[in-house]
């Protein structure tokens, strides 16, 4: 492991890797600080810039962007009470009251240092758990793999915002889209409408750009021109006594571990991690009455957790090939562009990729902290970039990025169609994450489903005789049923009160 980790760190001998790290972190901060834009959109928009790049360089840039975007959301949450990302909502509960008390510098310093600590600690957990997990997954047969993909999809569909039923429909839409093209085993064209451009299936990057980025442009049009927000003056950065920072070590470590564990669960993500960690810290705090009124402990807990969820989401992606969040699902698309297939074989075939990701998460910590603290005043102004300009920039990059993916017009048409479809689906509260995940995992799921049946001479018993498959399918069913039941119960309780 140490030898492989050394290979990961050796990648930083290349100046281009450093450039990618700093560039990714800068863009990540920018995206994260703009309310409405999140890491998913940021990673999707960065993919076109990675065409033709060395895989290691592009992965470092994307990982840096993902981590920095999760943090960037905290800046506007603290300064103007407008969280840049959903995961920074809990940060605003204490961060903004601190700003109102004239303690902006303290809040920013604690949030940046907690984010850095969160990533550092969770990366350690990632290294410890991902390798054994991938070795364990190597023993899986096609039946287990099919069930594993089903677990990932069910968790994302069940835990996604809104109704789990709509999550299931979204999963069905994504899987149906994944079946478009030539059948891998027989070569029969399926659902291609006679158009040869569909034979290779739907191009992933244009679909990602359409669903996540172009649909956001339509939401920006709805919002219209943005009003200028006035942020409080930032003073006292790094003026916090070391003793105060050291006193926050327990909530930071606890939230980092919690954030990692929650991040590993597909569909849970950084938002749930920050809410849960905030609630746990409040319950265990010696001063719970300060929470919500400007508690540094609250800021530290939320930020450590949402950033450690980044490394958590990487574990199933790298070890099993199952993305843990919409952003990692998009990242799979970026890896596929580079010809890399995440999963257990990745550690055996291309160890430099996962170990460079581990190394970049660690090396990225001081870079992120430095950029965060040094640029705090600039990031505070980012929220004032006029919305029409952002809409035009996002749309422009989408079109050029989609064209550049295949240098034909086909992906541009696909992206446009999916941009409008993404807008309609979001309006109907049909989550996009299960669609993306299903689109990414669809081929693997179908192939393993068919392989499992063939290896068992066409008998369906393979799905209920292997203990591992049974356990995984049971988890998949529970992942869907439990949130649905709890939602039904909540609705009944609400109906009684009306």
């Amino acid at each position, binding site marked *: 492991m140490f030898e492989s980790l050394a290979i990961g760190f050796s990648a930083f001998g290349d100046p281009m890797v450093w450039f990618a790290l700093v560039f990714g972190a800068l863009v990540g901060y920018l995206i994260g600080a703009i309310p409405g834009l999140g890491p998913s959109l940021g990673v999707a928009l960065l993919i076109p810039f990675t065409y033709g790049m060395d895989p290691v360089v592009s992965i470092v840039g994307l990982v840096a962007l993902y981590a920095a975007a999760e943090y960037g959301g905290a800046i506007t949450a603290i300064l103007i009470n407008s969280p840049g990302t959903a995961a920074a909502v809990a940060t605003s509960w204490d961060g903004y009251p601190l700003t109102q008390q004239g303690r902006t510098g303290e809040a920013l310093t604690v949030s940046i240092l907690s984010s850095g600590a969160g990533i550092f600690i969770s990366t350690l957990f990632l290294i410890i758990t991902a390798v054994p997990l991938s070795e364990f997954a190597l023993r899986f047969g096609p039946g287990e793999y099919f069930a594993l993909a089903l677990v990932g999809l069910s968790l994302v569909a069940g835990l996604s915002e809104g109704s789990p039923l709509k999550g299931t429909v979204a999963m069905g839409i994504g899987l149906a889209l994944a079946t478009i093209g030539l059948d891998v085993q027989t070569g029969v064209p399926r659902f291609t409408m006679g158009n040869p451009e569909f034979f290779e299936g739907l191009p992933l990057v244009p679909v990602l750009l359409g669903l996540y980025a172009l649909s956001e442009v339509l939401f920006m049009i709805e919002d219209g021109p943005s009003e200028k927000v006035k942020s409080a003056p930032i003073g006292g950065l790094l003026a916090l006594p070391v003793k105060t920072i050291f006193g926050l070590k327990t909530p930071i470590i606890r939230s980092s571990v919690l954030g990692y564990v929650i991040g590993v669960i597909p569909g849970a993500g950084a938002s749930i991690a920050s809410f849960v960690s905030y609630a746990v810290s409040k319950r265990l705090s010696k001063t719970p009455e300060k929470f919500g009124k400007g508690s540094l402990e609250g800021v530290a807990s939320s930020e450590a957790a949402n950033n450690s969820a980044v490394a958590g989401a990487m574990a199933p992606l790298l070890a099993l090939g199952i993305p843990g969040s919409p952003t990692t699902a998009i990242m799979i698309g970026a890896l596929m562009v580079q010809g890399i297939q995440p999963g257990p074989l990745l550690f055996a075939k291309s160890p430099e990729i996962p170990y460079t990701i581990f190394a970049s998460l660690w090396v990225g910590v001081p870079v992120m902290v430095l950029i965060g603290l040094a640029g705090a005043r600039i990031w505070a102004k980012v929220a004032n970039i006029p919305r029409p300009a952002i809409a*035009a920039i996002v749309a422009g990059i989408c079109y050029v990025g989609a064209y550049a993916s295949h240098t034909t017009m086909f992906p541009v048409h696909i992206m446009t169609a999916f941009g409008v479809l993404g807008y309609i689906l979001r309006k109907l509260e049909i989550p996009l994450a299960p669609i993306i995940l299903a689109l990414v995992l669809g081929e693997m799921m179908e192939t393993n489903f068919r392989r499992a049946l063939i290896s068992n001479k066409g008998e369906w018993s393979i799905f209920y005789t292997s203990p591992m498959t049974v356990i995984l399918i049971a988890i998949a069913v529970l992942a869907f049923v439990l949130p649905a039941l709890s939602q039904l119960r909540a609705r009944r309780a609400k109906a009684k009160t009306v």
Partner: protein
Amino acid sequence: MEDYKNALGWRLRWDALRGSLPVLDLLGCAALLVVFWQYFSQASALPQPLNKIDIGAGGFPTLLAIATLIAIVAVAVAAVIRMLDPVPVTWVSIRRPFYVLATVGLLFLQSIYFEKLGALPSVLIFALLTMLACGERRPLHLIGVPLALAAFIYVVFNLALDVNLP
């Protein structure tokens, strides 16, 4: 209760188009039922497997279509239950609907004319129109942002990444 029933449906004001989520769910389900029924028909028509132990090219899509059709019907049933429920319905609103519709048109126009106009001119023109649709009226911004964007795209994609843009 009567007020609540009257509230179901649509409201059109000059600045916002509003519809109740259960009604929209039913419309969405109807559209998805048609799409997935077509998908099911095409999947069933795919060639049969060459041997008995395989399910063939159409097997997985057929199973998927059946499962998704069931889920769509379940969403529709849930929408009907919500309409009959005393719990107030969620409203979905589209603010500035005419500008949204105009932008959808712009997006499709850009995808048609992207190659004919050339990447940079089309980015210039459509960035300007997108900004106008988003409510920007300051001339300096309307000229500066599209120009800066086109320059950025030229430097990054043409020069740095060596992509052959039309």
